[in-house]
């Protein structure tokens, strides 16, 4: 610690509110830096570093496949994937930074509010990949160039077609409150999953907390990650999921599982998932190269091909067979508002669902 603070009061405070301990002075940047392309110099510098620590909430198989593609494209740079739920990743980084451990190079979170939190703390390095500058809509990038949305997920409903009769298939969130769904639902957790945190915020806003209070009476099976409910429905552990990641549902269906995705009539909560490079990254060049490639048509196409997720790049088409992004009824997100109430949401959720 460069600044000594000998008071015990400060000690308890800084250890207690880990994230409030600022490792680096906050700096306000009003302008995004100039966009950068992938240059031979960047590749060379990244190769010297030889690795990149990628913290992400992406489903582990997908994250690893994507990383392998990057490693194949740029031999000599190993991607170390640290996968957990976004809320866990957020805790992890806060805990590590509070102990001066700057291990993270680049992060991908499904709770966009995190990007605003890190930006506010001055932890992020401004970096604008060339493609993000030219081919990403303004809504997908930070105005100061500190992060950019690289993938788009929806929180949706799904049901097992062997366990649910077609006429009983749910069409929206509120259908799941019917008595036939008692003990039949699986649901992910907003204190673990950033996608579920984002969707819980949106649903509490649009449907009211009373929806969750009613849902809690349905004897749900509480799992953690948003990628888990589709798996549980696919192998028949529960008949339907009350929330979960749409892309995993599609992947399970492609593997032959009896599962059907439903974008709820109330609107599917949209999860704009940003990437951000950390200022104190131990492998800054590899982090930038990874971030840059993530935004290229090649990286974006790779992501679509292996996972079926939506991507923001204008020139990259969504996966054949999936609806167009504009045709999905969206329940909108609001990361800056979520940032202010995230802790309340966790507490409220825990009091309603008991875990």
């Amino acid at each position: 610690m460069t600044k000594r603070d000998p008071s015990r009061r400060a000690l308890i405070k800084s250890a207690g509110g880990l994230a409030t301990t600022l490792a680096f002075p906050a700096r306000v940047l009003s302008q995004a830096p100039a966009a950068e392309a992938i240059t031979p110099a960047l590749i060379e510098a990244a190769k010297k570093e030889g690795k990149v620590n990628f913290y992400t909430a992406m489903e582990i198989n997908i994250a690893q496949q994507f990383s392998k593609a990057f490693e194949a494209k740029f031999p000599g740079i190993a991607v170390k994937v640290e996968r957990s739920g976004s809320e866990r990743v957020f805790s992890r980084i806060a805990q590590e930074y509070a102990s001066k451990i700057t291990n993270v190079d680049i992060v991908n979170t499904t709770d966009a509010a995190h990007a605003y939190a890190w930006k506010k703390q001055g932890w992020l390095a401004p970096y604008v990949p060339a493609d993000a500058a030219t081919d990403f809509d303004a809504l997908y990038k930070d105005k100061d160039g500190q992060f950019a949305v690289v993938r788009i997920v929806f929180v949706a409903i799904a049901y097992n077609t062997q366990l649910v009769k077609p006429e009983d298939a749910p069409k929206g969130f509120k259908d799941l409150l019917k008595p036939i769904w008692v003990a039949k639902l699986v649901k992910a957790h907003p204190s673990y999953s950033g996608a579920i945190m984002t969707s819980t915020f949106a649903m509490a806003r649009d449907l009211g907390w009373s929806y969750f209070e009613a849902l809690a009476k349905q004897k749900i099976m509480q799992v953690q990650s948003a990628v888990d409910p589709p798996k549980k429905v696919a192998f028949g552990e529960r008949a339907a999921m009350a929330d979960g990641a749409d892309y995993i549902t599609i992947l399970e269906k492609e593997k032959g599982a009896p599962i059907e995705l439903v974008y709820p009539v109330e609107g599917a909560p949209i999860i704009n998932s940003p990437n951000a490079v950390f200022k104190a990254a131990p492998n800054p060049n590899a982090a930038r190269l990874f971030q840059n490639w993530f935004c290229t048509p090649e990286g974006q196409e790779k992501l679509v091909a292996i996972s079926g997720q939506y991507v923001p790049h204008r020139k990259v088409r969504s996966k054949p067979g999936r609806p167009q992004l504009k045709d999905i009824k969206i329940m909108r997100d609001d990361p800056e508002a979520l940032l202010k109430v995230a802790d309340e949401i966790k507490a409220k959720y825990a009091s309603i669902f008991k875990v």
Partner: protein
Amino acid sequence: MTDESVKSDPVPNRGGVVRRFDASGPVLMLFSGILVLLIVLPLIWLILFAFASKDGGFTIANFVTIFGDPAFQEPLVTTLIIAVSVGLICSIVAAPMGWLVARSDMPGRGVVRTLVTASFVTPPFLGAIAWELLAAPNSGLLNQAWRGLTGAQPDQHLLNIYTLPGVIFVIVCYTFPYVFVLVANALDRVPGELEDASSMLGARSWTTARRITIPMALPAILAGMLIAFLQAMNLFGSPAILAIPAGFHTMTTKIWTLFQFPPKLELAAAAAVPLLVLTVVLLRAQAQVLGRRSYAVLGGKYGAPRPVPLGAFRWLAFALCMALLMLPVFLPYGALFNAAFSKFPSKILTWETLSMQNVHFTFFELSQTWHVMKNTFLLGALSATLGTVMALVISYLAIRKAVRGHQMLGFLATAPIAIPGIVLGVGLFLAYTRPWISVGGIDIPPIVLYGTLWILLIAYVTIELPAAYQQLSSSLQAVHVELEEASRILGATRLKALRQITAPLLLSGVIATWCFIFVAVVRELSAAAILFTSDTKVLSVLIFDLKESGDLGAIAVLGLTMLVVTTIVIAGANLIPGTRHGMGQRRDG
């Protein structure tokens, strides 16, 4: 040291007490210092935080919350229900099994002992995941089989592991070995003459059992029940895996959630205090009960106990034991094997579903696997070595009364048994992540070990020290001091006597202790779950991570790998001549 021991009088006095040598002061200081640092420092921080408000002032508000808020009351009650049930059920199941193995002529007693050891070596969290595969209400293999046999409807189920009884059942599966080992070892030592005398005096078998055998085993049963209670109370993995999906918390899982953002360390510390206090109180109670009830079966030479003939029931008893051991060993490992090599973890493996995809993913795609394995087995070997050396030195000093104040060393080395893994994790986190503090005007620099393997090493050594100390001090007691003294009378120095006489006789005990710590460290989750960072992740934490995203195939592969490596290490250590595998009291999360 050699010079000093030559200078000191090599002839012991008549009480069998070796005269202290001059280095005793520094030696005692050094080891007490290490032990205090290991144990007392994290506890001080734990207590400090438990009574601290958010802004650093003194408060009891944290305890008001812990005991007043239903969000904490409910887990506390649940934890007590689980712990009491586990203690009772373990005793009911394991005590008769221990008797059968120790005192009856039941066939396959060695097989039963081995299988109990196998359930002992199984990490409880892995057992819990395996039981999800078996008894999840809809996809569980046993429920599927039941529906197949009875033609029941898809939403009907025989078993539901995501319930309070389910959690209790799984904890019992991996806790009963504590009771079994204690009872079997105690009965091994009861001389057969007592029972013979009873029957010679005309008592029937049942009377002999009631008047002789059961009272002899009772202290061990009570001790076992208590250990089972404490294990269940302080266990983190199994409830985290089974209770949270069912919608309830135990104290350990609740403490763990307090570490999530925004971390509430004061509450976590306060919530850990009841676990700590209850553990200390119960261990005191146990010491008292055992102190009064332990029967002196030492002294004199007794014949080996004669096995009680079971007659026609011999094979029935064996069949019953095997049926019970299906639950912690055969069924779970079968389910893990199935999940590891199948495309669908919830379907019985066939030639069509056979797949190496999980194996390939785990070893060639998952970028963390190798790093995490290296961390785990490195920590296992280091902790085992360091823990064994420390336990050896401390038990030597304590048993041979080689330094003044040796009782304190023994006490300090046993003290961590009262600290639950998750509590120690919280304490160490608080102790070794802190920034600068000022005590009485003196600035104390930070000791930041969080983020290094050192903090995990400290946690593991501390957690395993009591068991290691107990094992080695009993081994050392078995090597009578007269042997060392004879050597020293013949002119050997203390160190030479140690090297030539004591060390070879102790070898088997040392290796058993080393293996024991190694196994325990590899399967430890509760302290590691608090103390890991991305770079210092261990296998148990990786499995737990994968569990949270539902990657059952990779978990099965990692779990089986863990078991194979552990088995190889133990088998390798036991190849050293003159060793046998031993197990005693231990704890885990």
